[in-house]
């Protein structure tokens, strides 16, 4: 126990936290590596004539392992709803999901015998690879983006971010009262801006060139309306900063979440293609 304690203190900034990637000394990474190596050795040793394919004994074996793995990996979707600890903790499960999912690249590719074509079999393979690639992306963003997220928020909570804009809007509203109708219309432009209205593409791209607040700011600076307008310009500028923070947050969140919109639906498409693949093989047995 003493040594374990020492180990924990050495984790430093992470404290006692151990991510799913390093779960239990890379236990599942080792298991996945072993599986991949075994598949590779079997592939190299097996005498399959005239060339490797999914229909040899090795092909069927690798295919069966791959299919079962895919189904088990999909179970994470159910399993994650129950957060538990211990040997089969959710973290352990996730670790296994990641590493065994990666080993599927080796198992499934060797199953194909590198024979790909325009057919349902390659469709299943391609969909599976897309799922894995999206998963890899997910791991990458989970490893890097949460830091960016917290540094962006700079100790403010998300409701506080919204609140900042709402408060600025209220101040704008008051500050704009003396303005003429035309200038008031410009301010209203800013008040209509809803940063959350941005869709997937704009969130991901971080492109907000049509931001109404920005437009209002530009127009407002152009007017020569004296102190009232100057006050409004100040507020619009402050709002720009507050909006930018929200948008950075939106962008990071979108980058963090978008892969699941590929990963999950394509997983189901993979399972459907897998079913078609298997049944078609037996149909024309």
């Amino acid at each position, binding site marked *: 126990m003493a040594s374990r304690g020492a180990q924990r203190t050495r984790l430093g900034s992470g404290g006692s936290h151990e991510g799913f990637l390093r779960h239990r000394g890379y236990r599942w990474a080792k298991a996945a590596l072993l599986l991949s190596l075994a598949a590779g050795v079997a592939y190299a040793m097996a005498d399959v004539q005239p060339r490797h394919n999914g229909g040899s004994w090795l092909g069927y074996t690798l295919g069966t392992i791959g299919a079962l793995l895919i189904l088990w990996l999909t179970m994470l979707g159910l399993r994650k709803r129950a957060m538990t600890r211990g040997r089969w903790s959710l973290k352990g499960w996730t670790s296994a999901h990641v590493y065994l999912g990666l080993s599927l690249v080796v198992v499934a590719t060797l199953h194909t015998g590198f*024979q790909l074509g325009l057919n349902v079999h390659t469709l299943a393979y391609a969909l599976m690879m897309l799922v894995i690639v999206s998963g890899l992306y997910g791991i990458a963003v989970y490893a890097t983006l949460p830091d960016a997220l917290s540094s962006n928020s700079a100790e403010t909570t998300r409701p506080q971010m919204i609140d900042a804009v709402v408060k600025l809007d209220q101040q704008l509203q008051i500050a704009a*009262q*003396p303005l003429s109708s035309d200038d008031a219309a410009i301010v209203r432009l800013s008040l209509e801006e809803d940063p*959350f209205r941005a869709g997937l593409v704009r969130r991901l791209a971080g492109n907000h060139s049509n931001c109404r607040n920005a437009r209002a700011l530009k127009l407002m600076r152009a007017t020569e309306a004296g102190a009232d307008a100057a006050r409004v310009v100040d507020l619009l500028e402050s709002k720009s900063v507050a909006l930018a923070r929200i948008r950075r947050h939106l962008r990071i969140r979108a980058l963090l979440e978008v892969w699941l919109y590929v990963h*999950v639906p394509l997983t189901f498409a993979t399972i459907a293609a897998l079913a078609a693949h298997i049944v078609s*093989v037996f*149909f024309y047995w």
Partner: protein
Amino acid sequence: MAFVLRTVSHSAGGREIVRTARVEGDRLTIGRDPACDVHLTDLAVALRHAEVTRSGPGRLDLQASPGLTVELDGRKASAGTIDLATGGDIRIASHALRFMPAAADADVDIAVERVTEGERGELARADERRFSLVSVMPGKRPLAWLLAALVLAIFFAWPVWTILDRQEEPAAERFHPDRMWLSGSLSQVHAGLEDNCAACHAEPFVAVRDESCQSCHVRVHDHANQARLARARPGLDGWGRFRLAVQETFGLTPGRCVDCHTEHEGPQEMAPTPQRFCADCHSGMQERLGDTRLGDASDFGRAHPEFQPSVLIRWDGETPVMQRVSLGARPHENSNLRFPHALHLSRDGGAAQMGRRLRGQYGFGDSLVCADCHVPTPDGTRFQPVDMEGDCAMCHSLAFDRVGGTVRTLRHGSPEQVVADLREYFRGHPPARPSVLGGGARRRPGDIMQIRSTMQYTLALAGSGAAAERAIRAVFSPRGACYDCHQVQAPPPGSLAFRIRPVAFPTRYMHNGWFDHRPHQQAECATCHAAERSQSANDLLLPGIETCRTCHGGESSGDVPSTCAMCHDYHEDEGVPAMLLRQRVRGRRWETTLIPVPAQTGGRR
């Protein structure tokens, strides 16, 4: 006369708060300007947006500032009137002004209320869930089900539907969705079947059966008796038994055509069956199949028995007895012919001299070569049996008489006729004129010169009565024309019924293996056939396996890698092995004879 303004607002708890103000006079200004009587803070409201004036008893005039509108009783208008008897509603931006019905000259009650949130709408209500993509994306689950259903519909339901439907539309040229199931293109020969999966996959969920292959390949026969085949298979180890059990569980019975002839390997030539499929059974087969006469073989370069040609080992009366004998046993051939190859191929012996003399007539070289006597078959594969008249008589003349310009020859192959011809000759030619035959300038072995000298000798001895008989005996005796090449059976005492032992040559020595001389033409005959050193016709001049191995290795060795299929054929036994034929058809091999011997019927052996 006044306007009474009741400004309604709501507390956080939803409670209504009403503030009342009174505006004296007949004029009511409405706008964002705090100086207006009705001060509306909505920025959509102009500083001075509209004016309401009492223009008569019970009547209010509404006039919006130039270029602006208000909503009067639900309609947009820049000006209008309100009848106080019925009241009216004015809507400006997010604010509503309700003019209550009143007596013509009473105070006008106006309820002012903010009815919508106006510009302070959505953002104030935004909660942190809107940071997540969930708020702008369709749900993952509907997306997942949609994609899955789409894949199943296109790649499963559609093909199955058309397969079940196909009976009614047999030769349709439309797209066959089961092409999407094609695991790999068919080989070139079967490419035409790619739109007709059912040609081989006759029944759903039933493995491809031999009947499907045999519906086109009608002449292919089995390799051997199925029971013997089964016994010849190598004993299965645990892993093999397990695999077999799994295969049989899934309906893959062993021994089907497709076990060896795999398909869907891409649009190339059908992959040649690997040697392993032969070697599996043929190595160690003697142990498993005790009564087989076939030696164990697994690779031509490493493990193949010595050739066992079918040799004419002896005669049973007039019938030649052929027997397969290993070349290792140095078998002798008994063709009943005397023929020393060495003598004929010698560069300076009598045969060479004879050849040079007859050069102008027959095109011989400085000495005789194999091709002077041996004639290949039209396809070039083998050689025709040696024929006396065609291949030997150029030198070995049987001429004995000349009538005018015509040379009479003894009849080859018919000793009785020889005897009769010679008797007739002596009857017609008195012994006093022996020189009538002296015109021939050539002297040939076995020539009539011998006969003539014998005749002269016998004449000299006297008695012309016995001359014919002596001449006949001389022909059939040592140094006689027949005796030089043939085995002569002496007649019973007092008879002249000499007999010649029949002669036979095998036209093909190896019936279970294929050898084609044509691809080997660039080599000298002597490279393989040691004819120059052969002193006896009994020498079997077939080369042994070691001679072949100088060039031919096993499946993956030697100058010429040679699988079993180069010489042996699994299904056919007589003609060119299918592999060589295929290579010829594909332009990869030009030398091979392309005349397959048609198999007569299925099920030989």
